[in-house]
């Protein structure tokens, strides 16, 4: 199966702001050139202060998300406390590497707020974690989104600015990528709340 990461299509992006983080994804679930549905969820709220975005093979998106949900739920029950975003970021890396020779075909992005401080981490499909950048992309439209991010991004944006920038970047990227689009969803997380906004992209 050539291009297993391209089979379903889809794009994700994560960004850090001033004491806030944002995550955005497209809504398409396709099978190569066919579009099956236009409301597929790719960003998940793992905890009040942690978001997990996944791109790649949709089957693995769902399975890996379910695995992370299970891990964090068991952790909450066993340790009687919430998981820190940096800890979750490490958990994602070790869980991916556990399947080193039969990997999940996903490229995750983890975003969270730890004591108000924004956390952002991205990985390849076998768990190489990178948490050095202020914005990260994933999926088939990733490179197009990078272009828009580089142009619009500036550090320490407010939640409103961040929402605008990440939304525009996602839309620009998805409109160029034939396998991503059919709508976008933007999540902005601050200490106080999580806002979710649905965007329109080119309807093709």
């Amino acid at each position, binding site marked *: 199966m050539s291009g297993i990461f391209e089979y379903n299509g889809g794009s994700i992006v994560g960004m850090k702001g001033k004491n806030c983080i944002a995550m955005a994804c497209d809504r398409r679930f396709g099978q190569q050139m066919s579009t099956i549905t236009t409301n597929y969820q790719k960003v998940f709220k793992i905890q009040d202060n942690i978001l997990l975005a996944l791109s790649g093979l949709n089957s693995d998106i769902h399975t890996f998300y379910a695995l992370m949900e299970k891990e964090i739920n068991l952790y909450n029950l*066993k*340790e009687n406390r919430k998981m*820190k975003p*940096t*800890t979750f970021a*490490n*958990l994602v890396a*070790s869980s991916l590497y556990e399947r080193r020779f039969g990997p999940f075909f996903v490229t995750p992005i983890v975003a969270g707020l730890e004591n108000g401080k924004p956390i952002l981490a991205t990985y390849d499909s076998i768990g190489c974690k990178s948490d050095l950048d202020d914005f990260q992309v994933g999926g088939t439209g990733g490179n197009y989104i990078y272009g828009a991010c580089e142009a619009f991004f500036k550090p320490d944006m407010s939640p409103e600015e961040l929402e605008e920038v990440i939304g525009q970047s996602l839309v620009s990227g998805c409109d160029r990528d034939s396998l991503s689009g059919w709508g976008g969803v933007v999540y902005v997380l601050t200490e106080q709340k999580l806002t979710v906004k649905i965007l329109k992209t080119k309807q093709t």
Partner: protein
Amino acid sequence: MTDFALTTFSSKGKLLQIEYALNAVAKGDTAIGIKAKNGVVLVVEKKQSSILVEESSVQKVSLLTDNIAATYAGLGPDFRVLSQQARKLVKKYDLKYQEEIFVQTLSRELAEDVQVATQRGGIRPFGVSILIAGYDEEGPHLVQLDPSGAYYSWKATAIGKQAKNAKAFLEKRYNADMEIEDAINTALLTLKEGFEGQITPTNIEVGVIRDDHVFRILPPSQVKDYLEELE
């Protein structure tokens, strides 16, 4: 390995093997732990059977990770095995989460291994009670782990030969506002109370962790200073 458990219930509902394990613990050298506001101290008797024994080669306080250590009363080799198990558990947690393990979490996971030895086929329970002392994000902790697999958090406790007398002594001396230096002195005093013969810097072992999260086993020179202060 046999198919059947060696530890089975008596008609009175007791697990005699565990009671006997506790007897082994009660015969062991005394160990004392005290949790202060800003640290924890472990003090343990290290009486050698003969003057020919190399005292420095015997280590009764084991470091499990930078900020958690343990000591015991009972069978030395069983403690050695459990210490190693505990260290592996710490590393396993570290590989998965890359985070400092909580003392309670480590105690719970180690307790599982101890309990398994009371229910699995062909093996006997561990003949040690362990005192785990550590300082994590939640603060200072002192946990006792028994051969049954039960674990308890303590403010101050003693295990081994002088456990009963030592605990009575501690009940009078302990107060919640204790600072770590007071705790060290109190622990040494408590051990001295029931000590057979002369207490010296080489026939006891002292381990201390303060709010810097670093567990240190005191060298005999430092122990000597504390002992002299007691006079």
